[in-house]
């Protein structure tokens, strides 16, 4: 059952065709990876989905709804969360506060209620805290709970970024190069967490990745791009053997 569909999307920046006529479908509950050499347009596609850029052509459908022209905050409200290639955390805050901000989409109270800190607000705060603690338990961030982001090591920051996205309880999670900057052990841990997120929490994942080991291990299907154009979609094994993909990575 398809959760997300991109139909013939294209975008250019100046004269550069960053993405040309790319179409793909992501099924509910799967882990879908996007691979390709640098400049292939992978992060651009994420930016199109989370509405940082506008598409020049094509449509994006999430669970049947057209999200091509949604405002940026609307994407999160639909249940799509994303992480960024260079972590975009809230540097002046603690890890816990970052996660609590991640719960923002589930806010049901208005400004006046919050100014008065009515019991409904208090209940909501406790609920958010519970959600954040569950995510902390899942990703083992207890030690860092009250640390400011500014002093954290890089691997932990990437993890906090994923944790923050999980607090949104999304249906679709976009991970942008989650293993970049991580050592092999941390990458292996990431593989386990991906399994947990996908199997236990039932979250569909679209992942941009360079680490082919992680891709093979964790993904159900893979899409290969080069220079903004779609090369092929298939299982990790199929894609790795595809002649166009080999040509894109290794040359003729």
């Amino acid at each position, binding site marked *: 059952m398809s959760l997300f569909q991109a139909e013939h999307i294209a975008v250019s920046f100046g004269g550069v065709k960053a993405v040309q006529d790319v179409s793909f479908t992501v099924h509910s509950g799967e882990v879908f990876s996007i691979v390709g050499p640098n400049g292939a347009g992978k992060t651009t596609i994420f930016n199109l989905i989370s509405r940082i850029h506008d598409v020049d052509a094509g449509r994006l459908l999430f669970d049947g709804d057209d999200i091509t022209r949604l405002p*940026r905050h609307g994407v999160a409200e639909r249940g799509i969360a994303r992480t960024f290639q260079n972590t975009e955390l809230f540097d*002046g805050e603690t890890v816990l506060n970052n996660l609590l901000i991640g719960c923002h989409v589930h806010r049901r109270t208005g400004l006046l209620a*919050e100014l008065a800190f009515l019991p409904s607000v208090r209940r909501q705060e406790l609920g958010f805290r519970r959600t954040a603690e569950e995510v902390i338990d899942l990703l083992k961030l207890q030690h860092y709970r009250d640390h400011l982001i500014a002093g954290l090591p890089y691997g932990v920051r990437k993890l906090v970024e994923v944790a923050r996205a999980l607090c949104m309880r999304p249906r679709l999670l976009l991970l942008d190069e989650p293993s970049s900057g991580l050592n092999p052990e941390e990458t292996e841990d990431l593989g386990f967490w991906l399994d947990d997120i996908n199997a236990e929490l039932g979250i569909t994942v679209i992942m941009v990745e360079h680490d082919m080991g992680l891709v093979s291990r964790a993904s159900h299907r893979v899409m290969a791009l080069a220079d903004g154009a779609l090369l092929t979609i298939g299982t990790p094994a199929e894609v790795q053997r595809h002649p166009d993909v080999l040509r894109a990575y290794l040359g003729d």
Partner: protein
Amino acid sequence: MRFIRKTRYAQDIALFRHNGQRFWYALLGVLVVAAPLALDDFYLGEMAQVYIYAIAGIGLMILVGYTGLVSLGHAAFLAIGAYAQAWLLTRGWPFPLALGGAALLTAATGAAVALPVMRMTGIYLAVATLAFAVIVEQVIVHWASVTGGFSGMLVPGADFAGMDLASPRAFYWLCLGVLAAALLLAANLLRSPSGRALVAVRDSEVSAASMGIHLIRTKTLAFGLSAGFTGLGGALFAHKIGYLAPDAFTLQLSIMLLLMVVVGGLGSLHGVVFGAVFIGLLPQGLALLRDTVPPAVAQIPGLEPGVFGAILVLVLIYEPQGMYGRWCKIRAYFSEFPLYRRATYKRQKRYLRTERLQ
């Protein structure tokens, strides 16, 4: 050393961390409420002024400290609040309604200002607020039918809950009460999703938007709330000074409000109160100083702003976390004695990173 053992999430949400804090704040509360019984009218007036500055400072702190939007023209909101209060009173509004009305009017103006400045950042925003303040000043001068222009406007006397506001005691308790309410509202804001949204917008607009935070709404909220609190302070300020004229709300006042927030400690409500006490006491301190230095020094034009400037510079270089930061360090020293290490608070050497890429 105090170890706080947390067993419930509610402890993290609460306004006071532990019973020791509750005790000290309660003591402080008793002292300030009982102050009129011990102090004479002059000091009551000074303390009321400190409270008014603090209320205005809460507004500025919300904008600068929490949302990261610098305002060099906040005296304009003070002016709007003051003039609105005076005008509403002359129209016969009862005092509590006038106070609320003045605050709401100022909040609306603030929200309106937010719209054109929505996409501005950093220095551009600061200068835009400066320009806004100048324009407000000109409007006050030229809209003489409402504001009395250069000749100014008398603030009508008022009474509230049976007490005449001209009485220093009544006015003191009023300002204290409004400050307590304002602090409570601000503290509630900051521990709720709206407050966190402000901070998120400050730290990373891109990821705030991808978390579902509505950027336009949040910035408008920040400006509106900030203006509202400052306008409330302005309305009380009107009663304090009794007679409104455009030259009571100058650029220097805007800078002084910023000074208060920075010197007090950016990023905390405690900082606002510390800063307000500092700003309130500074003219008295300077007056005392003037008596002790030779007349040649005392007569220097621009001495008071010069001293402000010097203090601001020293605080920014040597104690960027302000008075509250220094207070926290001192407290940590005593509570961790003899294990306190200076390195805990040592600032890392930082290198310039461009902010031009937004």
